């Protein structure tokens, strides 16, 4: 009965803490918006084209580039393009050389396009790769066609048929796939980062973890006011009280996860993954609340732990396969098991162990740090 009243009063208090509640509110709003409207967002990179060539092939090249799903091509004259680049409105400008068509018709593919890029965006690498691919595609078609014409005489109809066939071949999916296979470890370990990264639920998971951590301000306040000291003087442990007071944060974060999971097309199993993840977060809350003496240190350490969890587990960005030791270290981060859940892979036992680890670490830190002792200023 007493526990219930502590829980309920803390629940009410959590709902009144506007500062921290705003974290979870924004997380819910943004994640729901991402789940509903995410696919409609225009995330293409802008690349500005300056066409210095008057031939037909440069026009064909631009048309092909305009079909690239990751790019938005704008055609400008040189002055305008440089101005846009200087103002930081585009990560790259490419100049189709005046001899573009001539070189391709002569079978050359060197220096067809001039490329100016800046380092402050990822867009230029995407554009460079697409430009190279499309140039080589046109070059290959022209080269084979001109070679063919030197060998045999083709009617106009046959030439058209050849180019139509080329369009069909290049328009089809690439049939060759190169697949890395790790020896001495499970292959799925390598690809698990791809599944849920970037999704609304993954982003919510990152922010919810931070919300639970930052919610441990009550531990700092209680310690300063000497509540834990008084409890321990009576010969009882403060741990159950701290856990009861932390539970509302987990429940609020979990309640926020429910609509996001279902809007993202998730299922009930994912709810379990989220529950384990957030309970692990409660362990993190105990840990941080025990070692931090004020809000400033709590913000800093919450950022380190929540950010580390987001990056290392792969929730924020998929870690490349070659990250070596991190592929092992990530197993102790709760995000790894949430990500497995989001990717439809088995997560339960690993997640359970991970949650137990974090809870134990939290309780142990709390006991070792002497929560009942009042910190001197």
């Amino acid at each position: 009965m007493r526990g219930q009243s502590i829980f309920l009063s803390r629940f009410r208090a959590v709902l009144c803490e506007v500062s921290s509640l705003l974290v979870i509110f924004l997380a819910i709003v943004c994640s729901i918006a991402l789940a509903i409207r995410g696919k409609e967002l225009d995330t293409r990179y802008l690349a500005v084209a300056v066409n210095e060539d008057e031939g037909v092939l440069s026009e064909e090249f631009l048309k092909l580039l305009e079909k690239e799903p990751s790019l938005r091509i704008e055609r400008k004259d040189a002055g305008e393009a440089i101005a846009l680049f200087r103002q930081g409105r585009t990560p790259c400008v490419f100049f189709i050389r005046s001899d573009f068509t001539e070189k391709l018709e002569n079978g050359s593919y060197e220096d067809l396009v001039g490329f100016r890029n800046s380092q402050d965006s990822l867009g230029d690498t995407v554009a460079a790769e697409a430009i190279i691919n499309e140039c080589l595609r046109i070059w290959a078609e022209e080269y084979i066609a001109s070679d063919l014409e030197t060998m045999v005489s083709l009617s106009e109809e046959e030439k058209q048929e050849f180019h139509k066939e080329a369009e069909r071949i290049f328009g089809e999916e690439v049939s060759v796939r190169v697949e890395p296979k790790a020896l001495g470890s499970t292959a799925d370990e390598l690809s698990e980062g791809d599944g849920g990264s970037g999704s609304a639920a993954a982003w919510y998971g990152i922010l919810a973890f931070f919300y639970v951590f930052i919610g441990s301000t009550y531990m700092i306040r209680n310690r300063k006011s000497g509540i834990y000291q008084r409890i321990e003087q009576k010969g009882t442990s403060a741990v159950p009280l701290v856990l009861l007071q932390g539970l509302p944060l987990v429940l609020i974060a979990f309640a926020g996860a429910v609509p996001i999971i279902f809007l993202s097309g998730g299922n009930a199993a994912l709810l379990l993954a989220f529950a384990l993840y957030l309970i692990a977060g409660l362990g993190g809350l105990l840990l941080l609340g025990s070692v931090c003496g004020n809000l400033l240190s709590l913000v800093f350490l919450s950022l380190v732990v929540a950010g580390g969890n987001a990056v290392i587990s792969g929730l924020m960005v998929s870690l490349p396969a070659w990250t070596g030791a991190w592929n092992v270290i990530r197993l102790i981060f709760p995000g790894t098991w949430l990500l497995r859940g989001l990717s439809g892979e088995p997560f339960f036992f690993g997640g359970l162990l991970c949650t137990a680890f974090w809870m134990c670490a939290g309780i142990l830190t709390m006991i070792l740090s002497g929560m009942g002792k009042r910190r001197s200023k």
Partner: protein
Amino acid sequence: MRFLSLLRFDIKRLIGNGRVVLLALLVPFVAVLLFVSILLPAFSAKDGISIAYGIVNEEEHDLVHQMVNLFSNSEAISQYGEAYPVSDLETGVEAINDGDLDLLIHIPEDFYGALMEQRPVTIEVYYPKKHAMETDIIVKSLQSCFSIYGQSEVLVAYAGDLMKQKGIPEETRLEKMSEEYWDLFYAQVGRGKVLGWDTVLSPAGFVKYEYYLGVVFSIFSLFAAFPVLYLTSADMRERFRMRRLCSRQAISFYFARLLSGSLLVLCSFAVMLPIAAGAGFIKGIFSPAFLPAVLLTVLCFSSLLIFLSLLAKEPDHGLWIAFYVTVGCIVFGILIPDSAMPSGVDEILRWIPIRPVISLLTNTIYSSEDIRIGQDFLRLSVDTGIFTALGALLYRRKGEGI
């Protein structure tokens, strides 16, 4: 109190608090260390590594044999190691387990047939985890190579059929087709030449660490300024309440805080830069504008956080405001691309401090495009000017008004 004594006093208060400084510098330290440890294996590979890789070629077609030879000896791959033919998959895997081979490329039976008929076909690359990085390079190279090359080969075959229909002798036809295959292959292994670059297979396909490093530097130097905000909020509540200040004193206090705060942020750069440089991510190609860029950055972040601290009555509230502003800067300045924003809004977002900071730092460290620097300096100077003016004004008002 003279300004210099005031400044010295303020630096002692801010930097003298060991725990605060430790926290402010620990976060950037951990962040850069994490970043470096994740990317280091791939990065160091660019400078040349030597691996022994086996090739199991189960495809009997001559062309594939020749292609494998050319691929192994291509500039792109030969700089990473040496190729060895392996009779079968089992032997290859055993050689990997014994440590005789670092990785194994497996070309399946009927590869050529599948390529020509555009049926799905998979080349497998087996590797022990310690060689995951090299595998990534090989996988990327092979994938780039086959994306356009595979399709071009199908077109060569189509042209070959046309020649046959037109009665070209078989020998001449095959010779011509073979010549075309090689030319197509050479084009793929030197694909950077399209842009006039002398590069490997996929010049753009590597991890763009320059950008990520700029992002890490920007975000974590901003976080390093948080203690400035905390102390300023506390001052507003405690010191300013104790005594009235004349305008001049308040302004002196403000600038002393601005400079001491800047010094703390500068310390975060002093922590982050050596780690990145030590790991080889920065190789001393700094533009002359680098130092002014860093100084302007630290001034901007320090003035921003002082200004934010003046909006709150309690240090904890100030911290929350700064936290939300920082998150907003990251979301709108980094995560959401311009193209996703309505026209007009994207222009406003370009003035969010974090964006010109990333641009300035990456472009001055790697000195790729000086043309961008002027505009970024302008944006950051305007931001700094606004935050400083508003901060000084509020500092004076709060100092006098209590």
